């Protein structure tokens, strides 16, 4: 593999990590929104606060990681994407800002009225953000981001592929969140809550599966390059996504939540990697390849050093944090 591809692969690993870890945080907004009034929703909202509280900031840094790697390694493609996709990106950004601050504010809000307000902002923006990030991915994957010039501030992303991308992103986030929350609830001894979550997650899983696979069809006409990749090189990933998705539903049915969580991660990771592998060798589909978009070689090498450091300095504590949150002691909903 060439240096450019290695850097692109690591960058895409960041996308995957954000889709899975950050995605589960975003998806919990749906369950928060649908938890019901303050009495019956209190347990679920407390659980959500508690499950994502310790990790959301760390999960969020994956996005920063992707951004900085992109502009360091592939500066022109970055500038082009930012220029053309300014609207969906700004809308996603708005969602990120509102979600992060509202989550923190709600946790320490003094009155029920304030908590309700911040809660709605948190939950709503949690759904808006993945949609627009998915739409951004759709625009890139369908070859609508020109390397030079920026016509298409609207037309680049108001397309079938972008809408599908957005819906798939929202659906997979909710599905992941459901699988994570149901396991957390069980571990925290909240069996009744786990049952409710299980039911909702099953429904969400079915709908998301339909969206993902029905969404493939319009791609043939709207994003031919991606379609070729998905039905060619990336086909195994599409199949893995299908099988893992079904397995997750089955495991949820028989209440094997710990396993269900793993297969859910596998399913979502396969969907996202399907997109990545499907559009290779392009960075901006039909415009510039990964290799051609790369900036200075010295910088790519420097980035490898940064990745190495990250592997040593960041991954072990991150694994420790994620492990801690899975222990019985940390799952207890007091603090």
């Amino acid at each position, binding site marked *: 593999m060439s240096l450019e591809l290695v850097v692109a692969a690591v960058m895409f690993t960041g996308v995957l990590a954000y889709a899975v870890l950050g995605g589960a945080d975003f998806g919990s907004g749906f369950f928060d929104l649908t938890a019901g009034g*303050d*009495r019956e*929703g*209190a347990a679920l*909202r*407390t659980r959500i606060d508690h499950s994502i*509280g*310790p*990790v959301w*900031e*760390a999960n*969020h*840094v994956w996005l*920063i*990681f992707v*951004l*900085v*790697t992109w*502009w*360091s390694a592939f*500066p*022109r493609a*970055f*500038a082009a994407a*930012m*220029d053309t996709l*300014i609207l969906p*990106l700004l809308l996603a950004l*708005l969602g*990120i*800002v509102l979600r*992060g*601050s509202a*989550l*923190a*504010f*709600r*946790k*320490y809000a*003094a*009155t*029920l009225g*304030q*908590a309700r307000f911040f809660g709605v902002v948190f939950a709503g923006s949690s759904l808006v953000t993945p949609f627009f990030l998915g739409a951004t991915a759709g625009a890139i994957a369908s070859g609508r981001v020109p390397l030079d010039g920026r016509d298409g501030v609207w037309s680049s992303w108001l397309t079938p592929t972008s809408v599908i991308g957005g819906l798939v992103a929202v659906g997979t986030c909710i599905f992941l969140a459901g699988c994570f929350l149901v396991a957390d609830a069980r571990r925290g001894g909240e069996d009744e809550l786990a049952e409710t979550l299980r039911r909702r997650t099953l429904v969400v899983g079915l709908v998301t599966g339909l969206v993902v696979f029905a969404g493939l069809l319009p791609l043939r006409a709207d994003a031919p390059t991606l379609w070729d990749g998905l039905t060619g090189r990336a086909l195994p990933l599409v199949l893995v996504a299908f099988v893992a998705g079904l397995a997750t539903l089955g495991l949820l049915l028989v209440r094997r939540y710990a396993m269900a969580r793993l297969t859910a991660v596998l399913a979502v990771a396969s969907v996202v990697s399907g997109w990545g592998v499907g559009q290779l060798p392009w960075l901006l589909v039909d415009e510039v390849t990964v290799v051609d978009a790369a*900036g200075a070689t*010295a*910088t790519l090498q420097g*980035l490898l050093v*940064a990745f190495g450091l*990250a592997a040593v*300095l*960041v991954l072990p504590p*991150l694994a*420790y*944090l994620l492990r*801690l*949150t899975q222990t019985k*002691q940390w799952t*207890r909903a007091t*603090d």
Partner: protein
Amino acid sequence: MDPLLTSLAPLLTTWAADVSAAAEPAGLLPARQQMALSLGWHIVLACFGVALPTIIAVVHWRGAFRGDEGALLLARRWGKVSAVLFAIGAVSGTVLGFEMGLLWPGLMGTFGDVVGLAFAFEGLSFFVEAIFLGMYLYAWGRMDPRHQFWMLVPMAVSGISGTFFILSVNAWMNAPVGFDIVDGEVVNIDPWAVFTNDQVWMQFLHMWLAAFMVAGFCVAAVYAAGMLRGRRDRHHRLGFLVPFAFATVAALMQPFVGHLLGLRVAETQPAKLAAFELALETESPSPLRLGGIVVDGEVVGSIDVPVLGSVIARNSFTEPVQGLDTIPPDEQPPVNVVHLAFQTMIGIGSLFVLVVLAYWVARWRRRDLLGNRWFLRAVVACAPLSVVALEAGWIATEVGRQPWVVYGVMRTTEAAGDNAGLWWLLGATTVVYTAMTVGAVLVLRSMARRWREGEEDLPSPYGPEHGDAEVEPAGTGAAR
């Protein structure tokens, strides 16, 4: 929103409109305002991100290893405050990450791979900080406080490294290194040179100290205000003393570091120094001009101290500050904004030296100034002043670099995009950031109030028990 920036906005608008009326891209002015607003907002929170972990570490250490329960309580409360501040700091930082590309495509498209590494390492620092923050905050009651203490150490260290890396980007913009331009192409890129740029160290140190001043004075001011209202228990004294000690060290070092930084500016950016010192022409030796503005090419209203300008800016009795008349007009920064911002910062910095010295000298002479209402009021005033100094310093640095975005290499007009729609973005950002500020103030105040009333856990109020409490806030509000 930041009061200083708000009041400066019209000023910035007018100069930018007439300085660069010639052929400027539609995206320039809104992008500038947007950058000033979002950076000016983020930097205040960044100061807490950098300095609070260290300040908390001191009280946590006393609590965990010396059995001081009161100190441990402070650590716990400050931790909760930092949970709120860090959250909005992280999201406002993310805004900046996007903005580098959205507002300045010319800059990132051309130089992204020159400065990118600094951002990548900065990202690493954030990662470490975010991970250990999560652990620290949720470890209460789940981990031995002595074990928990060690979570603060990586946070403090990554605060330092994060500051260094982001400042290396800014230092690079002021004194670009690590590339050559051949036939209009950027070649021979050495991404590591960004870290060895001479300017980085002083800028980093200066910013790091500023962070301790902002966080130190702001936290100390809360407890000083409490003492003014008659709450003079040990809790308040300790809560005052620890952050104040940090602010003291920073305030005493800052003038020296700032002075060294100024000496570098004389070498690398003469136009900026001329604007700092309001030197329209080269005078040898140069006077120090206090106050004053330029009107129609004349300095009015300044107090000139002979020779002092040369002494301070050049470390010499004779060497002049190079005048603006030696700089081509299209390479001059807007003088008045830069000069006033610079002197505001210096003035406030000097005032801080007096305030902190007053306290420690009195203490050394066995007088306790914490009983003095005027001293306590002065400390309360130091909190907003430290933020004003911080903003003023950045305005001096950034506006003083104009018309360049990368000094001597790329003009800001070349970095901006051609998107007049950015005005909408600015409007929306103003609304969102105002709302975030209101939200943060509301929540932090209510936390303080509930702590005073003896509620320690601050449970999340979704359930009915807390819903009932909503009916009676009138009585509790009066206690404030």
